[in-house]
C-alpha cells in the first residue's frame, strides 16, 4: 500500500457547475466537506457519495469521487449493498429531511440498526425545497405551506430522537453556519466504525429562510446552542450561566447554574451503553426556537455489519474450504445411468 497522496480542496472538487440557489446552506456544507477531505487521509477513488432525491441529493455531482445520485429515499439501501460488497470503501450518504425521513424513513432506520459502515449526513431544512415549498416531516405543526394553507396538522420527527430509537451507534448534530463544528462532526462520523448519522441544520433561503436563525445566528449561538462535550457537565450561555439537569423522572431540563450548583448538572456521556441520556437530551428542544444541543449525542462501539458478514464468509471458507461447484452439484443424492 503506497502512501495516500497529499490533496487539496481542488482535487476533491468536480468540474460540474454547482446548481443550488444562491445563498443556500448547502454551499457551506459542500465547502466544509471539500476542505475537510484532504485531512481524512483517504483516497478519492475509495470514496463514494450516494444520495437520493432532493436539493441535498445533488451533492455527489460536485465531489471528484465516485458518486451516485439515485432515487428518492433509497440511498441508505443502495449504500448498504455497496458497503457490504466493498467494505474497504468510504461510503457517504447524503439526503434531506424528506428523502431520509419521509420516503426513505424505513431504509434509514434499518441501515442504522444494522450498523452498516455508512456516514449519513441528513441536511435538515424543515421544508421540501426541490418540489417548491411543501411541509416536510420535520416542519413544525401549524406550518403554512402551499400544501397546508391552513397550517400543517402533522407532528414533526425529531431526527436525533428517531436515530437513537433506531439503535444508531453514532448520532451527532451540527449546523451550516459553523464550518469548524461541521468538520469536527463529519470527521467523527468518518472515524466511527458503523452507521453514523449527522443531522445538519441547513437553511433553505428560498422556502424556509431563517428557520434556524434564532439558534444558529452568530449572536444567538451562545445563548441557544448547547455544545455537548463528552465527560463535561452540560453548560451553555453567554457566560456559561445555564446548564442541563436530569429530573427525577429522567427528563432533561434547562436550569440556571446559579440555582442548582455545578454539581447538579448532568455530565454528558456519549459512550453510555443505554441511549436514555442521549435521548433525553434530544428531547430538550422541540423546535429551533429553544436551547438546542449540538455535538455528539451518542458514540458506541458495536459490531459493524459488513465486517460481520465478511467474517461469516471467511469462517465458511475456513471450515468448508473455498466453494467447489462440482461438489455443490453433487451434494444431493445422485444416481448413475449407464
Amino acid at each position, binding site marked *: 500500500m503506497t502512501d495516500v497522496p497529499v490533496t487539496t480542496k481542488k482535487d476533491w472538487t*468536480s468540474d*460540474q457547475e454547482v446548481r443550488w440557489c444562491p445563498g443556500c446552506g448547502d454551499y457551506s456544507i459542500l465547502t466544509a466537506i471539500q476542505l475537510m477531505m484532504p485531512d481524512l487521509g483517504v*483516497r*478519492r*477513488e*475509495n*470514496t*463514494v457519495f*450516494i444520495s437520493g*432525491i432532493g436539493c441535498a441529493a445533488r451533492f*455527489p*455531482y460536485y*465531489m*471528484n*469521487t*465516485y*458518486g*451516485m*445520485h*439515485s*432515487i428518492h429515499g*433509497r440511498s441508505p*439501501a*443502495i*449504500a*448498504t*449493498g*455497496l*458497503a*457490504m*460488497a*466493498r467494505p*474497504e*470503501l468510504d461510503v457517504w450518504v447524503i439526503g434531506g429531511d424528506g428523502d431520509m425521513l419521509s420516503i426513505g424513513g*424505513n*431504509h434509514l432506520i*434499518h441501515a442504522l440498526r444494522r450498523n452498516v459502515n455508512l456516514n449519513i449526513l441528513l441536511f435538515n431544512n424543515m421544508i421540501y425545497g426541490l418540489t417548491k415549498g411543501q411541509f416536510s416531516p420535520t416542519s413544525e405543526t401549524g406550518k403554512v405551506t402551499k400544501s397546508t394553507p391552513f397550517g400543517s396538522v402533522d407532528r414533526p420527527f425529531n431526527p436525533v430522537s428517531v436515530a437513537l430509537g433506531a439503535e444508531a451507534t453514532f448520532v451527532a448534530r451540527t449546523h451550516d453556519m459553523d464550518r469548524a463544528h461541521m468538520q469536527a462532526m463529519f470527521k467523527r462520523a468518518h472515524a466511527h466504525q458503523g452507521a453514523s448519522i449527522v443531522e445538519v441544520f441547513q437553511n433553505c433561503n428560498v422556502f424556509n429562510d431563517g428557520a434556524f436563525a434564532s439558534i444558529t445566528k452568530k449572536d444567538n449561538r451562545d445563548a441557544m446552542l448547547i455544545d455537548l462535550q463528552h465527560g463535561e457537565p452540560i453548560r451553555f450561555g453567554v457566560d456559561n450561566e445555564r446548564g442541563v439537569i436530569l429530573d427525577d423522572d429522567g427528563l432533561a431540563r434547562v436550569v440556571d447554574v446559579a440555582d442548582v450548583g455545578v454539581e447538579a448538572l448532568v455530565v454528558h456521556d456519549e459512550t453510555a451503553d443505554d441511549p436514555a441520556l442521549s435521548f433525553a437530551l434530544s428531547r430538550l428542544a422541540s423546535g429551533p426556537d429553544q436551547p438546542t444541543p449540538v455535538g455528539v449525542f451518542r458514540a458506541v462501539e458495536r459490531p459493524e455489519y459488513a465486517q460481520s*458478514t465478511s467474517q*461469516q*464468509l471467511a*469462517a*465458511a*471458507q475456513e*471450515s*468448508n*474450504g*473455498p*466453494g467447489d*461447484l*462440482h461438489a*455443490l*452439484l*453433487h451434494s*444431493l*443424492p*445422485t*444416481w*448413475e*445411468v*449407464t
Partner: protein
Amino acid sequence: MTDTAEQPTTAREISHVIVRFAGDSGDGMQLTGDRFTNASALFGNDLATLPDFPAEIRAPAGTLAGVSAFQVQISDHDITTPGDAPSVLIAMNPAALKSDLHRLEAGGTIIVNEDTFEDRNLAKAGYGESPLDDGSLDGYTLLKVPMTSLTKEVCNDLGVKARDADRSKNFFALGLVSWMYSRPLETTLDWIQEKFAGKDLVIAANEAALKAGHAFGETAELGEMRFVIKPAKLEPGTYTNINGNTALSWGLVAASQQANLPLFLGSYPITPASDILHELSKHKNFGIRTLQAEDEIAAVGAALGASYGGHIGVTTTSGPGVALKGETIGLAVSLELPLVIIDIQRGGPSTGLPTKTEASDLMMAMYGRHGESPLPIVAAYSPTNCFDVAIEAVRIAITYRTPVILLSDGYLANGSEPWRLPSVDSLPDIRVDLATETNHVGADGEPEFWPYLRDDNLARPWAVPGTPDLMHRVGGIEKQDGTGNISYDPDNHQLMTDIREARIAKIADTIPDVEVLGDVDAELCIVGWGSTWGAITSAVERMRAAGQKVAQIHLTHLNPFPKNLGDELRRFDRVLVPEMNTGQLTRLLRAEFLVDAQAIAKVMGQPFTAGELVTRIQEATND
C-alpha cells in the same frame, strides 16, 4: 443402479404411474411426496412433481381449506409433466378425499386412512354420510387402512406417546405406497436417520411406521396391487433430483464462478421465492453475500449498490415484489449497471394466490416501469432449466450492463425432476472486463474517463469504486452521451432513449435462433414460454402419435426475441399460444410480428395438463 429391493413375482410391470398424496396441512404430505419422489429418482425412474398446497401454514384441521397435496408421475421413460389424472389417491382424511377425488382417473385406486373417517372429520369435510359406506366410491378400487391406529400400535411398544405417534402416520402411508410400487426403503430410512439425528424416539417412530406400512402391503394380501416400474432409459450420466428454486440458486452460484465475480443477493421473504434466499445463504464459502432486507425496495437497492461495486447484484421475489422494485429497476436501466431480478410468478393481482402458480407477469416485466425503459427478459421452462437460465440471465446482465428479469413460477420453483448433472467444464465462460483505464482525452490533452462511452455491444464501461483515475458520477437524471454529465438537451434525450433501445435489441446477436420442433411442415404451431413446456411437449407428442401434424416452438428469450422468430411464425397458418395468463405473449407476438396468434389461456392456479391442452388445441383448430 441402486436397486436393492426384492422383486416379488407378484409385482406387475407397468410403464408409469401418477400418485397423489393428499391430507391435512399438518399431515406432512409434502414431505411424504418428496420422499417417495426421491426414492423413485434414486431407483432410476424419470419423474415430475406437482406440490399443491394452501397459503395458510395450518388452516383449521380437517377442513377443505387445509388440504395439502403432492402429485408425482414416475415412469420408465422420458416424461415432461406430473401427469393428467392420478391413478392412485392417498387420502389421509375425509377433506382430502372430498377435495381431490375429482382429479382421480375413472376406476382409479383410493387409499384412505380409515381412522379419520369419523363423524367430526366427516362433518368438517361436508359429508353427511361416510363415503366409505354409501356406495359413492363403487366405481373405484377402495382400500381402507386404519393408518393412525396401526401406527400407534407399533409405536406403543417403543414408548412413543400416542400423540407423537400420530405424527408418524404419513410414514405408514409412505411405507405402503413404497411397497405397492416396489420402492426400496433404504433411501427413506437413511434420510430419517439424517433428518431427525439426535431425536431417537422420532427416528424410531418414523422407521417403525414406514416398515409397518410396507409390511401391511405384504401381509394384507394386496398382491394384485403391487407393481414395478423399471428404471427409465435416460441419457447416461450422473443424475440428481432437483426442484426449480434449488436449480436456480445453483445456477446463480455457477454464474458467479463462471464470471469470476462475487454474487450478492438482496431479498425479502416472499412465497414462492424464499427458498432461493435460504439456499444461497448456505453457500457463504462461495463468497456469496446475502441480505435479508427490510423490504422489497431495499432488497433491489442493495443489489444495485453491490453491482455498482462490481458484484453480480441479484434480487429474488414474486410479482408483488417486482411491482415494488419497479423504480429501482428503472434506475438500473438509466445507470446501465448489471442487475438480475428473479420473479417466481404466482397468481395475482395483489396477494392473489401466493402458493399457486401462474405466469402473468410477462407484461409487467416488459413494460412495468415508467418512461421508455427496455430490459431483457428470459424465462425458464423446466425445474432443471432454471440452472441454465440463471447463468444466461447473469451473462446478459454483466455483458450488456443492464437489469435482466428472469421469470420462473411456483410450479417450476417447487416441482422437481431428475437432472443429468453437467460437468463444470462444460459451463459457459461469461467473464467480462471491468474498466481499469481512462478512455478519452480531454480538450486540454489530459486523459479523462467517460462513463458513457460504449463498446461494440453499446455497453458502457463497468468502472467500480476503488479504481484509480476513473472517478465519475452517475445518476437517474438523463445523462449526456459519452460524458455522463447531466443533460436536459432534447436531442440528447432522443439519442439516449434510442441507444438504450438499440442496446437491448442488440442482445439478439448473442442468443440462439428458435428451433421448430415436431412437424416443421405443419400448418399448426404451438408456441409457449415458461413452465407450459412440459404440458405442451407432451400434448404435441400425443397429437403427433395420433397422426396429426403439429410444430412446436418454445421461447427462453422473451425480450429481445430470437432473430428468426418472426419468419418462423409466419410460415404457419395457425399459431396457438398456451399461457397461464390471459394471453400476454400472444399480444406481444401479434404486436411484434403481425401474426394472428391466438391464446389458449388458463389462470386457475394449476398448470396445464397435457390432456387438457390436446382438447383445447383441438377445440381451437376446429373453430
